[in-house]
């Protein structure tokens, strides 16, 4: 890489990181101000449903600086968030950070296993669908994609729980599990339920991206040079088809995180998703706000990373100077 290309790559990376910072700032502002959309007095909204003494209300007023001008309040809040202070949960009588930290590992395991399933089975089915186009297998993949995209995680959860949990008794139907093996045993059905819709989307993208690449002339050239078909598919078709697959994968992250709310609730698991539902249900707005911010932030960060990685997947992007 020449120094000028290096400079250009660094420049475009810097621009993307700056863009990410701005997006995060704007989203944090939106999430922060949402509190003031709630009907009534914000202080009493925060302790809604629980009896609060005038002293407690006063304490909240001071903590949130409700008497300060709006930008000052935002600035204080943002300062706290940047230092890891996400407020206090009135439901658990803990700091929001502690509440989240206790439930994060379970959700990470769930999302991780689901992502693995999506990457292996989704991409695999897409490859088969493209290579076997026009055959019985190819049509079966298309049918699975159409149905899979329409099976919401709560339906998948009900069916999986009913068949493999209750009828066959192969998997536990509730809870998180204790040691690692037990946790994996518990997370299997939820992870499948979580991955169905997204797997269908990834399969569809992989299939169409593979089909686009299969038509390229350089594929014929590679075949004309006597390279085995399998090698050509791996080195020239799949490799070139990766760009759209990774991009779509990044876009699915937020949807997956939100769907953990459904899956964790359906399987009685304790995690960030079920916490969100519980806190909406029991009016613990601080926690809700923190989770919304977390989901959006993860989405923004992941997609910035995807953008940054893209030139490695497709060197032509590098030449374009990272222009969108």
């Amino acid at each position, binding site marked *: 890489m020449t120094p000028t290309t290096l400079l250009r790559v660094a420049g475009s990376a810097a621009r993307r990181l700056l863009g990410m910072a701005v997006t995060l700032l704007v989203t944090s502002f939106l999430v922060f101000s949402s509190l003031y959309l709630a009907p009534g007095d914000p202080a009493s909204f925060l302790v809604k449903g629980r009896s609060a003494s005038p002293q407690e209300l006063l304490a909240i007023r001071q903590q949130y600086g409700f008497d300060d001008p709006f930008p000052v309040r935002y600035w204080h809040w943002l300062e706290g968030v940047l230092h890891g202070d996400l407020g206090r949960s009135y439901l658990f009588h803990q700091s929001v950070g502690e509440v989240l930290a206790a439930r994060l590992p379970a959700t990470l395991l769930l999302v991780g296993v689901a992502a693995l399933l999506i990457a292996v089975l989704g991409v695999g089915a897409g490859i088969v669908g493209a290579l076997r186009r026009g055959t019985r297998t190819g049509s079966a993949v298309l049918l699975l994609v159409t149905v899979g995209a329409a099976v919401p995680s709560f339906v998948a959860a009900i069916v999986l729980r009913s068949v493999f949990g209750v009828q066959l008794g192969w998997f536990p139907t509730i809870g998180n599990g204790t040691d690692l093996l037990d946790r994996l045993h518990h997370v299997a059905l939820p992870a499948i339920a979580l991955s169905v819709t997204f797997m269908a989307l990834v399969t569809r993208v992989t299939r169409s991206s593979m089909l686009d690449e299969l038509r390229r002339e350089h594929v*014929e*050239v590679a075949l*004309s*040079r*006597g390279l085995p078909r399998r090698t050509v598919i791996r080195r020239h078709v799949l490799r070139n088809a990766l760009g759209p697959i990774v991009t779509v994968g990044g876009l699915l992250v937020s949807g997956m995180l939100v769907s953990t709310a459904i899956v964790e609730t359906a399987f009685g698991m304790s995690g960030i998703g079920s916490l969100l539902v519980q806190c909406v249900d029991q009016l613990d707005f601080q926690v809700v706000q923190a989770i919304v911010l977390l989901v959006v932030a993860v989405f923004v960060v992941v997609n910035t990373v995807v953008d940054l990685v893209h030139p490695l997947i497709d060197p032509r992007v590098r030449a374009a100077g990272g222009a969108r």
Partner: protein
Amino acid sequence: MPILEYEALEVALPGMARPILDGVSLSVAEGEAVALVGESGSGKSVTARAALGLLPAGARVGGQVRVGGAELIGADADTVRAVRTGKASMIFQDPRAGINPVRRVGDFLTEQLRLVGGRSKAEAEARVLELLGAVGLPDPPRHLRQYPHQMSGGMLQRVMIAGALTADPRLLLCDEPTTALDVTTQAEIMAILRRLQREKGLGLLLITHDLDLAAATCDRIYVMYAGRIVETGTAAELLAAPRHPYTAGLLGSSPPLHGELTRLVPIPGSPMSLAQSAPGCAFFDRCHFAQPGRCDQAAPPLAPLGAGMVACHRVDELANSAAQEIR
């Protein structure tokens, strides 16, 4: 023994009115340069690809194609691979489409040697650097690390030629190798191809729509129309005295390479698509000399005439005079 030999090759797609190739016979001897000339859609590219066992998916195929004595039609995968990795190579029209844009140029050049030839990376690179020198690419080691989009079309076509030579083929198939390049580069690429062909004594089949280029580069020429060979002969003969009205038309419709520009006479109409078929001569609708009741009854056979062969019902009457006139 010819290095490349087609015998009555027939390729047809189901649902089409006429076959893509209809009884194509053609041969290229070792060390001989032969051109196959025709408009786009005439089937010349399909002919060339057949020599590497690359046929349209779902096509019905008849006849024979032999490369270095090995029969390709109905051959098993090993035979096809042996032809592709040691007997014949193809240079494609557009190097920008023909070389994977997301891999390095060095990767394209060495992959055949490494993945099929079983050479180590170092061996393959040494061989490739030598070939890059032979095709006149300056500073070869630097280009190995570049991506295709970082090189010009002319340089990439040199890479494509070097890539075609890595397996030491005896036959070079060139499918419009200069069409995608700008004019100044075209001459350079053709000069490189001719030099390599002579030095190594390769058989060369040049696919082109440009009869003048074919005549300037090759020993013999086949003219193809609607999936059939309509005229063949030595380059000098064909250029001086074309006998098929289509060949004459091709000469009339291209600006002369040397000398003053005379008025261009385009061939009227457009070539026949695969969805059309005709009981008689396929060129009937566009021919100045077509005689209803004769030319549209049966397809003219390719018959010997002098040193070459022509497929035209009226070739004797027209002789040289009429064809000369249209020129």
